[in-house]
């Protein structure tokens, strides 16, 4: 299950639930117009409990397409999401920012 909420300030999406084979197409099509437009896109993933390799591939494609036209911010990532970002080497993209919550 995945709920997608469009946000204006900051421009982006809030993703609640899980990105997998059942939901990845909706994630892809929600992100696509923002990537075409460019600029900074903030994905609030504080309530995204899971992302699979196809979801990570959507992020990779977005980062490639944005290139120097824009950047992607992953805000409030869970442990699981940070893990897949690291293991797939997404941190190598210069236009990706993983904005972890400051520890108290």
């Amino acid at each position: 299950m995945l709920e997608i909420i469009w946000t204006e300030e900051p421009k982006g999406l809030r993703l609640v639930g899980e990105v997998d084979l059942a939901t990845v197409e909706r994630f892809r099509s929600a992100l696509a117009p923002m990537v075409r437009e460019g600029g900074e896109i903030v994905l609030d993933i504080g309530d995204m409990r899971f992302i699979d390799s196809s979801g990570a591939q959507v992020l990779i494609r977005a980062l490639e397409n944005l290139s120097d036209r824009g950047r992607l911010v992953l805000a409030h990532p869970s442990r699981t999401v940070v893990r897949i970002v690291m293991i797939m080497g997404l941190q190598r993209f210069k236009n990706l920012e993983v904005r972890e919550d400051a520890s108290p």
Partner: protein
Amino acid sequence: MFRSQISRSFIADPAQLEEVRRFVSGAAERAGLSEQTTDDLVLAANEAATNSILHSGTKRFHVRWLALDDRVEIEIHDEGLFERRILMHQLDGSAGLGIPLMMSLTDELELHEGIPSRPGTRTRLVKFRTGS
């Protein structure tokens, strides 16, 4: 030493993946695995099940969980054929990351491809217990 084994069958439908993940995380919790190990196993099993649903043409697949003293094993077994093809990033888009991801997440990965004379692809994921 044998400890515990659980098996469950699933219909090959993307909506079932959530159930597969719940099955694995529940078993991992009962086996007392760390959060990190649990996450890795959930992710790896999800990729194997995704492959069965997407590529094998199977109607059902089976997940077997085996917890031993030194390791846990998850076997994902379908009734289909393994599509043997080299994936091209430019042509295949999001496909092709599942197997390398499973390799990075596990300590051992074994793939038995289903072929016409012996259908059924079997993926065995092994993770050794760490610490004490």
